């Protein structure tokens, strides 16, 4: 059983930010096909801002909820694209899910993870199958919960989540977008991976690495 403290959560944001910088151009290219080509920029900007904001906190004097809310707010105010409110809501809901805790155990992290997915869904009102990041996040949250319920530890649960996200992102290729910018393309969106789903895979993979390695 790992114990995640705020310093570890702060490092998690640094890990995601690094991953986003590396993935930026691919995400912009994906968004260029069915959106407006800025998704990589938005994700890099958002997570860099979140990283900097949480790094500026005094980890010893900050609880996970405050850290996550700080990340949410800085992400939100850095990014005007759709991904801003979606990830900001994710982290705010995650913050609420771990309210009162000073450190997080395995099941707390899975709850946080599931709350994030729920936050994205509540904010964007997308259902699975609409070709959005929800097609990665929803199966990932479900897989993490199931893995934990079946006795897996955090590493195993997040591993299951990452794999489900990957499969979900892959599946968006066969979907016609009915939410987000790509929805105006109708059938023209077929055959292309949703950029938000693609970046979700990167985020989730980075979270797994940062929280379990």
């Amino acid at each position, binding site marked *: 059983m790992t114990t995640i403290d705020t310093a570890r959560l702060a490092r998690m944001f640094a890990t995601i930010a690094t991953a986003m910088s590396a993935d930026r151009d691919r995400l912009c290219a994906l968004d260029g096909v069915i959106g*407006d*080509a*800025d998704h990589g920029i938005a994700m890099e900007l958002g997570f860099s801002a979140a990283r900097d904001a949480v790094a500026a906190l005094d980890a010893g004097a900050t609880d996970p909820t405050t850290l996550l809310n700080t990340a949410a707010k800085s992400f*939100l*105010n*850095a*990014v*005007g*694209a*759709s991904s*801003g*409110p*979606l990830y*900001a*809501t994710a982290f705010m809901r995650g913050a609420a899910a771990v309210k009162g805790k000073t450190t997080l155990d395995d099941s707390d992290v899975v709850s946080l993870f599931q709350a994030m997915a729920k936050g994205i869904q509540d*904010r*964007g*009102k997308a259902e699975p199958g*609409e070709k959005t990041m929800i097609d990665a996040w929803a199966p990932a949250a479900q897989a993490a919960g199931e893995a934990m319920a079946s006795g897996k530890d955090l590493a195993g649960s997040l591993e299951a989540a990452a794999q489900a996200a990957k499969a979900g992102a892959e599946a968006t290729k066969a979907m016609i977008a*009915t*939410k*987000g*910018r790509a*929805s*105006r*393309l*109708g059938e*023209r969106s077929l055959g292309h991976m949703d950029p938000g789903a693609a970046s979700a895979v990167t985020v989730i993979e980075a979270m797994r690495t940062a929280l379990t390695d």
Partner: protein
Amino acid sequence: MKKFMNSVDTVLIESLDGFVAAHADILLLGDEHKFIRRKTLRPGKVALISGGGSGHEPLHGGFVGHGMLDAACPGQVFTSPTPDQMLAAAQAVDTGAGCLFIVKNYEGDVMNFDMAAEMSEGVQQIVTNDDVAVENSSYTTGRRGVAGTLVVEKIVGAAAEHGLALAPLKALGDRVNTATRSMGVALTSCTVPAAGKPTFDIGDGEMEFGVGIHGEPGRRRDTLKSADDIAEEICAAILGDLGDKAKGPALLFVNGFGGTPLMELYLMYNSARAIFEKHGVAVTRSLVGSYVTSLDMAGCSITLTMLDDETTKFWDAPVHTAALRWGM
């Protein structure tokens, strides 16, 4: 890319600085360029705040002033402003009677304004979605908010000046939005400064029918048609969508996308007016010009708002903003 600019990173703030300097008699700039606001507020009046991606000038900053908006929050080009902007604007211009956000129906904008609304007290929102180019059908995202947003902002702005409270203002805005339909056509692409090249390729003899104000693709690509044929198709889409409501007095608004000269806009107005009037619409108010643009795109949209006595009165009411001014 051929633009008057110094660097991609400073286009927006330099332009905002110039804008507010040129209209310093009526406008102020918020800290960190977060918003443009009226210089003088009217205590007790509901505060009207709009905003959205930049690149649609004069929308929205050009509509801040007496009889229209109290503040506008400019996002980066074609990107929603962030909630901290709306919160800062609301804090600056809400004199206690509440705030009404006027938001164009794009998910980025809607979600960002939603978050700002959730973080505030006493905020209502109007979401405009006048674009009939996107058919409602299976797309749950719904229609885009385009040039009709100006009409909502003008009429609700006059009503707010007149003293209407928050709830009836929201109801009025929704009613105007419901009475409004728009559709656009692009002859060229726009070029986003940060991208440095046209958003889409379009042939010399082609046009994009039903284009959005960010260069989003429209209903279809077609060969370039005559002005009358283009007007015919746009007006048919508007009339078809309005159905029985397309009778009686209306405002006809022909809007340029930034790269189309007035001569062509008035010609389109001439075509569209004849078509609408043949169908029993009485064009009692008119607006022609580039008010809701898409950077340097050549193209135009046609907007029809069905009017009644109340909305006509509010349309006619005095307005003093950078881009729309009459009666004062």
